[in-house]
């Protein structure tokens, strides 16, 4: 197929861009060069990652484009990267959203442009690297390195309570992930291998599995986030700059779901079986509770943040159903949420840039002045609700179909959450968009400009594309997911 190290190039291209930008001296004239250099780098990365998709072999369930080098001489730690059906779309999501983030911050980041762009490029490298690693320690290194740029993005360019939010984000996620480090070392001690591929066929003793599972759960449950470990998320979202929220909701939350599929399901099947009731309970509580909380929010970003927790609850239900529909639904829901919530944060960013407030009370009747904005916002809002024809529907539908095989109580919980999501999203839309303009300050508000169109329209197209042609996305991942389910069933049949 491709005989050059495509995955490594995709991982390290943003870092190379960052190194080049490091040597551009920043002043008022050159800051535009920095922005263009960043945009072109991220676009290049996106185009390369499309090659990944087009050349992808749908009939191969295991890793493709593998690259493997020995790294540490004293133990089996390899630089080992590759892509399979599960990680393919996670990588695409990261590379797709990053250029949009750069565009979204084109005008509203005024201080320290260079550091901002450097952070984003570094962030892109570690995100892609994390999804592409087939070695657990490599995965861990990228998983933790994500914290550094995100901490800076929230802390430097965030809102008023940015310091509190950035510390909470960093320490919360660090606490979860250090336990994973211990689990990784224990795994290595038992098997002398760090390869995810190898560990997925290797079953640990039952008691060991339970402890390992809890350690991984600590890090992924914080990351995804599951109720009651979600409290860092609303703070981080509200305080982060628009692009920061986009990456946070679009990609970073998916790291948790990805980890659950790869590690909990793939490597610790018996422990997963034992803990499924716990996950289901937490997920249903999360869906219902956070939906209700979302209903009471007065800040638009916070509302969307809580809705993320609720949507991620659907994802965890889907993952831990461990059947074909459930897992496919969870994956679709993750991709869809990555696009929709990113788009919603961008939409909030559009009006925030104009009015510098996110209070719902402040707005009303925007449709009068911003018809185009009202239209795209509606597409994303309906995507979030899960209207048929949008991406959100496929994921929720598949998860609920899968849940019927498991337990009808779970179905009731999930469905109730979906109804609530329609309530808070439609209510939000009504308060912001419909009606007449009551606030005088809104009288001169302008509709979205070209730059914002360039950002929002690709997102709108992909949301609808995902809703109408889900097989485009489901086919590549199907065999990889089946492999995980087969492994899981074999392990639990023993």
């Amino acid at each position, binding site marked *: 197929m491709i005989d050059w190290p495509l995955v490594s190039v995709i991982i390290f291209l943003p870092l190379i861009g960052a190194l080049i930008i490091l040597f551009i001296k920043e002043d008022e004239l050159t800051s535009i060069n920095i922005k263009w250099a960043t945009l072109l780098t991220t676009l290049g990365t996106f185009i390369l990652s499309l090659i990944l998709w087009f050349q992808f072999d749908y009939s191969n369930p295991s890793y493709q484009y593998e690259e493997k080098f020995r*790294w*540490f*001489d*004293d*133990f089996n730690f390899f630089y080992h990267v590759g892509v399979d059906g599960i990680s393919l779309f996670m990588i695409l999501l990261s590379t797709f959203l990053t250029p949009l983030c750069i565009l979204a911050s084109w005008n509203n980041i005024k201080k*320290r442009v260079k*550091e901002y762009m450097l952070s984003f490029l570094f962030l892109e490298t570690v995100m892609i690297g994390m999804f592409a690693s087939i070695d657990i320690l490599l995965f*861990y*290194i990228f998983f*933790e*390195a994500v*914290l*550094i740029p995100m*901490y*800076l993005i929230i*802390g*430097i360019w965030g809102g008023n309570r*940015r*310091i509190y939010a*950035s*510390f909470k984000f*960093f*320490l919360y996620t*660090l*606490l979860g992930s*250090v*336990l994973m*480090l*211990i689990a990784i*070392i*224990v795994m*290595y*001690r038992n098997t002398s291998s760090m390869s995810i591929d190898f560990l997925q066929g290797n079953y640990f003793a039952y008691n060991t599995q339970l402890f390992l599972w809890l350690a991984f759960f600590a890090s992924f449950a914080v990351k995804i986030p599951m109720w009651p470990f979600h409290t860092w998320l609303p703070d981080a979202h509200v305080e982060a700059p628009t692009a920061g929220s986009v990456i946070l909701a679009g990609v970073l939350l998916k790291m948790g779901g990805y980890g659950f599929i790869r590690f909990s399901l793939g490597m610790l099947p018996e422990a997963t079986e034992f803990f499924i009731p716990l996950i289901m309970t937490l997920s249903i509580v999360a869906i219902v509770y956070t939906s209700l909380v979302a209903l009471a929010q007065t800040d638009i970003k916070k509302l969307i943040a809580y809705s993320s927790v609720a949507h991620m609850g659907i994802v965890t239900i889907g993952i831990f159903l461990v059947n074909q529909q459930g897992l496919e639904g969870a994956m679709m829901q993750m991709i869809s949420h990555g696009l929709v919530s990113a788009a919603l944060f961008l939409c909030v960013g559009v009006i925030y840039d104009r009015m510098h407030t996110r209070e719902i009370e402040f707005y009303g009747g925007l449709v009068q002045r911003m018809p185009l904005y009202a239209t795209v916002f509606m597409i994303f809002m309906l995507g979030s609700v899960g209207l048929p024809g949008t991406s959100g529907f496929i994921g929720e539908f598949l998860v609920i179909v899968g849940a019927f095989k498991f337990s009808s109580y779970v179905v009731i919980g999930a469905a109730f959450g979906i109804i609530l999501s329609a309530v808070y999203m439609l209510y939000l839309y009504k308060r912001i968009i419909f009606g007449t303009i009551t606030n005088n300050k809104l009288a001169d508000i302008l509709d979205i400009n070209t730059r914002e169109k360039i950002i929002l329209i690709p997102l709108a197209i992909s949301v609808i594309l995902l809703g109408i042609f889900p097989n485009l996305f489901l086919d590549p991942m199907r065999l990889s997911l089946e492999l995980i389910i087969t492994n899981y069933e074999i392990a639990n049949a023993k």
Partner: protein
Amino acid sequence: MLNNIYNIFFIPEIFLACSSFVCLLFGLFLKKNAFRQTSNLAVFVLLLTILLVYYDSESNFANYKSLFSHSSFINFFKILALFGSIASIIISKDYFLGIKLKNFEIPVLFLFSTLGMMLMIASNNLMSMYLAIELQSLSLYVAAAIKRDSISSAESGVKYFILGALSSGILLYGFSLIYGFTGSMNFDDISFYLSKYDNLNLGLIFGLVFVMVGLAFKVSAVPFHMWTPDVYEGAPNSITGFFAIVPKIAAVALIYRFCLVPFENFYLEWSQIILFLSIASMFLGAIAAIAQSNIKRLLAYSSIGHIGYILIALVAANDDGIKAASIYMFSYMIMNVAIFAILLSLKVKNEYLINISDLKGLSKSNPIVSLSISIIMLSMAGIPPFIGFFGKFYVFIAAIEQELYVLSVLGVLASVISAFYYLRIIKIMYFDESKSEGIINFQISLQSKIILSLSLFLIICFIFYPSLLINISTNLTI
């Protein structure tokens, strides 16, 4: 025979001792620039000593072998200490000139204390161990109090002296008990004697506990850490840098050798003590540092925390533990060299930086310096991809190899707590808005710049080529 006598001078310690006297005389007879010239000479001498250690000529005279041992572990730590000492002499030169403290004795004191440390690391006998400890401490007592007209410097010197003397007394009492019950001072003989018994008698246990207390003073492990923050704070910054970088290396090597050579068969007895010291150090280091406003006190608590992690590897007491200790010590040394190279060049309103809050706005006036500090801080906190992470990683590998699960979990929890104060420094530099800009000056000499860039390079690029250090440290034997 004649040949043998000349060979004596190629024993690194003897060479260093003789050259230190030469340095002293050299400084004494120089009329001007005595400090600068002596420093240069001292660096040169230390470099030659490194070469001698590296090409390690093994010669035996006057019962030398029974006093001092010889192994790859010892050589690694000797070279580490020598490098640390070179780096701290170079980075502190400008600082001493800046505060007009031009006594040429300072580099000579550093040389003597480095000599003491080399002997400490190598010592294979209770008596030589004690004398070596005294040689390095005495030079350091004087160094701490070198700024005679400053009350805080004198206070820190006296504090250090009194507490150091107390710990030496305890140590000596422990030695006498061990000698009394085993009849020997030599590590190998003690080990041989003890191997005949299944458990230690009461006298030996007392001896062991006393020695452990004395050694804990030297590595500043909690609860024997009280002197560290005060001495760090009071001494002139560059002396603090030396304290933070070098003596720790020797003390850690010593505590490893003492536990693993004479008492290796009595793991249960000493490991309980070390276990407690380790947990207490990690947590106190992490929690007490949060409230500090003085950067030197903060670094003191941070070094206490680091000692806790190194002691985890000692509790593990396996080959991986020795490897972990050497990698951790290496990373500890270069991180401290880097941070002190920066601190000794930062001036706020013409005063050397002391308060953490003075770092405010540094990211605007000096983006590269603040980026460097951030990298060092993240590395100290153990965030990948920097070298500090790999130090901790190897420590936990060693601990889990020995099935010390609870200790490892406590270790990672402490590392999360300590991440808070490392992040706080980044926060002050990047997040806090400063009203007064441009009051921070960063002036650094070319030599310190080389040291700083080299250590930053190692911190960042270790991940790309780890095998060099790993291969060396894998084959160390104690």
